[in-house]
């Protein structure tokens, strides 16, 4: 029994991170169809920032979370200003925005990932943080994993609440439904849109910081998370924050149990299998009504 709890727990911990990464990407894609394929690279930046702060200055990783979020938010504003704003202004159609932002995303991915290789090398990096095990009814979990899971779920729930019950959240949802309509009812999209894009990257940065507490990090770590985030978005439905949370946790569980019953080398096959299956059977997401 304890074993199954541990297995489910490890799946949920990964799933929580997936949910957080996917929510960030969903914010960017839901608005104006910016397909930011370099999303995972910013997760990697968050992880490296946290690692650097901890190793060089001994800063507590959890205390450093707000700094990571702010730094990535600023990076997001910059990336938006330099790259994506022009695409939005010059593209003739939504499809063109999607295709061009995808290509720019690839460019950013090359740029950021290789800059990280250049700066920090290809070696695995890591630090020890709360590595003791905690027991729950016979099942043992690493404390850092629980911390990461707690923060990921809390952040996700916070975001869902923000979107659902605050005025800003309402404005963001309005903008997702119709950018022009939002402008007509007095929402300053020129301010809100970059801010939401930045918030998406901030979420990726936080996810990276949480990951660095649990796993070793490399400059190439971000890419698989981008793909996974897309799978989660597909599962949960475009533009749905609560769908992201459910989809992320579900995918984490599917991976954990799937790998247990087949083989760890099939992890990617499992995710893609789920992805293709959902796209074929329920292209609007599992929870679409």
């Amino acid at each position, binding site marked *: 029994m304890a074993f199954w709890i541990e297995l489910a727990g490890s799946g949920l911990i990964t799933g929580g991170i997936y949910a957080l990464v996917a929510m960030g990407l969903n914010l960017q894609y839901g608005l104006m169809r910016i397909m930011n394929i370099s999303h995972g690279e910013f997760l990697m930046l968050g992880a490296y920032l946290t690692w650097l702060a901890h190793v060089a200055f001994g800063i507590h990783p959890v205390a450093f979370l707000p700094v990571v979020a702010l730094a990535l938010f600023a990076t997001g504003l910059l990336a938006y200003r330099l*790259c994506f704003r022009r695409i939005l202004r010059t593209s003739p159609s939504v499809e063109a925005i999607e*295709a061009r932002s995808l290509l*720019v995303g690839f460019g950013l991915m*090359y740029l950021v990932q290789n800059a990280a290789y250049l700066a920090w090398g290809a070696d695995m990096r890591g630090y020890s943080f709360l590595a003791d095990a905690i027991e729950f009814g016979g099942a043992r979990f690493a404390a850092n994993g629980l911390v990461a899971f707690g923060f990921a779920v809390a952040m996700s729930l916070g975001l869902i609440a923000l979107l659902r019950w605050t005025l800003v959240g309402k404005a963001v949802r309005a903008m997702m439904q119709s950018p022009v309509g939002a402008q007509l009812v007095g929402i300053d999209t020129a301010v809100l849109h970059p801010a939401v894009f930045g918030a998406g990257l901030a979420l990726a940065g936080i996810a990276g910081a949480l990951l660095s507490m649990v796993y070793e990090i490399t400059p190439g770590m971000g890419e698989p998370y981008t793909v996974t985030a897309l799978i989660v978005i597909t599962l949960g439905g475009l533009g749905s924050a609560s769908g992201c949370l459910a989809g992320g946790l579900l995918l984490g569980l599917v991976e954990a149990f799937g790998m247990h019953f087949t083989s760890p*080398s099939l992890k*990617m*096959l499992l995710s893609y299998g789920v992805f*293709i299956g959902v796209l074929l059977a329920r*292209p609007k997401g599992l929870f679409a009504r």
Partner: protein
Amino acid sequence: MNADLRRTLSLTAAAALGLASVPWLASDFWLSLALTCVMYAGLAVTWAMFSGATGYLSLATSAFFGIGAYVTAWGLGTLPYLLLVPLGGLAAAAFAALVGLAVLHLRGAYFAVLTFGLGELVRHAITYFEKTYAKTVGRVLSDVPESSVVYLTVLLVTAIAVAACAAVRASRLGLALAGIGADEGRAQTLGVDTRRVKIVAFALSAFFAGALGAAVAVRWTYVEPSSVFNPFIGFQTVLIAMLGGAQTLIGPLASAIVFSILTELLRLQFPYAYLMLLGALLILLVLYLPGGIATLIHRPRRTDG
């Protein structure tokens, strides 16, 4: 056959004949560089035939390329090399048709991500298969053909690919593809069987990517999933075609030569800095020259009028 097409075909034949002399004129280094140029020219032109015309951004090139390469890896020794090349192409085309049946109704980012996933999917599947049933990670290719034979084969495949793309552009199929790119709903209303057209073109472009993979695989004496399914091959292809101008025929060809030379010269010495440069170039081009370099030379036909 109209005059334009006849001119393009005779130019292609002349260029191929001229390039066929490279093995007797150049050193090994230049021969290998020429091989890379010709390979990317073939990949980029056939990618542009489907994705450039329709706007369906396929990132599956490395999947098709790898499938072709694995046909060679499995068949070399039992079947002649020259038979394996079309076989590799057919395997990739069959795979593309199957995948196309399932996913070609998706547009935009979903299609791009799904096709990117395909490469990874096939790579992991083959890795798993080889580990479990063949108890090996990679395969050593013995008695490979001479490098001049490989070069000439790749040149032949690319020449056929360019000719095929020129023929497609001048045909009803090409018009239908351009129509899908301009407005798929309208093309459908005007009586184009968009589903069939997309699958045929997707499979045709996969055929050439697979054949090129099968032909080039013998270049490496050791074939393993991570080298032949390298996503870099797919990215580089897309990059070359987009930078050159994916809606034209000459654009991808010209930029294939430029970028293959750049890659070979810079990538080994400054691997990370070179890729950063590529990334920055891609961003700048998409932002300021979305039609590719070819738009600087001549304006492409308006497709949105």
